[in-house]
């Protein structure tokens, strides 16, 4: 039963959502009423959305458990793990308190405290973390990108054309040709390559989706 019921639930929910794809919604002009599978589909999507959110919160519980263990064990990172947990629970307290109306720091017409923290702490941290990659990509350009073969040379040339074609200086130093080369490259060559990649990936999604919906694929149950 530990295996059969989950597989049955997967097949049933998968087939119902698939069925809803092939049925029609309301069309007053044509006198068509909404098919019942649309209601089932809407409800199942809501269920998936709820489980998705609960699964996320489950992940947080694991993060907290692991961090607490590290703090108990002492060591170099114990201080930083403490900072992380204080930030986590402090911010959660502020945010949930404001959401449920347990407390409020804002006056009339002012923004909630959780948005101030978002603005002054979260935004600079996340934005700067990702901006660091600009430095590493520069370093990689010097150390790693080698024109060892025809293919790698083409990659570098295409990259250079994009870099030049996207900025004003590119057209200035190529007499306006950089953006034309870029347009041709993106539409006719990149367009073909992207379509091939997407078609290949979608065939994979279709095959895997069919295996799951038909109950053949069971690896998600750790079998």
């Amino acid at each position, binding site marked *: 039963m530990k295996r059969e*019921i*989950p597989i049955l*639930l*997967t*097949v049933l*929910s*998968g087939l*119902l*959502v698939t069925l809803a*794809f092939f049925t029609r919604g309301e069309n007053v002009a044509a006198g068509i009423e*909404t098919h019942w599978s649309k*209601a*089932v589909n809407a*409800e199942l999507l809501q*269920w998936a959305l*709820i*489980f998705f959110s*609960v*699964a996320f*919160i489950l992940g*947080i519980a694991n993060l907290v458990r692991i961090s607490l263990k590290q703090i108990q064990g002492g060591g170099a990172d114990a201080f*930083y793990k403490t*900072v992380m947990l204080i*930030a986590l629970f*402090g*911010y959660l307290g502020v*945010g*949930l308190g404001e*959401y449920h109306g347990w407390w409020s720091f804002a*006056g009339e017409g*002012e923004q909630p405290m959780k948005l*101030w923290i978002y603005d002054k702490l*979260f935004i*600079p*941290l996340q*934005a*700067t*973390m*990702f*901006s*660091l990659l*600009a430095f590493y990509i520069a370093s990689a350009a010097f150390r790693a990108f080698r024109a060892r073969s025809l*293919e790698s040379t083409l*990659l570098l040339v*295409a990259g250079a*054309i*994009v*870099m030049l074609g*996207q900025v004003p200086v590119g057209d200035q130093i190529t007499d306006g040709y950089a953006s034309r080369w870029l347009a*041709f490259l993106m539409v*006719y*060559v990149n367009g073909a390559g992207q*379509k*091939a990649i997407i*078609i290949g*990936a*979608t065939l994979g*999604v279709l095959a895997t*989706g069919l295996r799951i*919906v038909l109950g053949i694929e069971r690896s998600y149950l750790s079998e």
Partner: protein
Amino acid sequence: MFLALQEAVTEAPFFTLDTSQPGDVLGAWLVCFLTLAVFSFLYKDNPFYKFAEHLFVGLGTAWFTMKYYEEGIVQPIHEYITSARAAGAAGEVFELGGYPLDTAWAIGFRVVAGIFALFLLSRLIAPNGWAPRWPLAIMVGVYAALKMTGETQSKLVLLLANAVAPVTDPNKLAWGELTQNPGWRIENWDMFFSFSMGIFFVGLICALLHFVFTFKRTRVLAGVSKVGVVTLMITFGSMFGFTVLGRIALLIERIDSLDGYTDPAYSLAGDSGGFLTMAFSPPILLGAVIALTLGVGALRGRGGDSA
């Protein structure tokens, strides 16, 4: 700095939640400290960066938890059931996905979803129990079916149909840019169109055939595959070029943001004068303090060089 684009802020409150006022002083110092603390990683891993990194994980996790709790639990369970009950009490027609439904059924279904969500949470107590598998199974089934149907229609059927559409209707191809921009007019359009479409279809077919592993690689197939690889490498090259563009755009925005905090309102020296105002502004002063601390630390030989 940067006077041509925006007026310098000369007065700002120490702390405010009122968004109609200029950004507050406390916020300015925090933004600059955290930005520079993250940038300090470029020198080497250090306590400033570690502090910022863990603060980021804590705050980010809290924000995500808040949003998932509010929109993924409170809204679809509590608010939905409240709405359904209100509709039932008022005798209104309650619709689910456009289909009229008795409110008792609507509430019943959602209560079951709530119970299944609790099953998922039971993983905390019994990680290998049967209960968490039920909601997980439903989630996998729904996702698989949704992706399979939606993506097959849009990224396979419609994509292929649209790939061949320009042959009969050139307006379906993104070619206008080559003719539309001044000075870009192409004299022999028909020849250019045939040449471009040739490149496109040869590239597409060869790249697709490169992924076919059903047949033995003969010389012909190997040749076709080589053309496919060339198309894919140019595609990857353009992706690399765009990645550079994106990453640098993020860096420029952060530098621009720091630049904005050199205004007199945020400087410890106030509006006393050009150099002093600048030297005691948050990005310069905090940058100097972080650099000095790391420099002294390096001189004393503390910590390993992980850069």
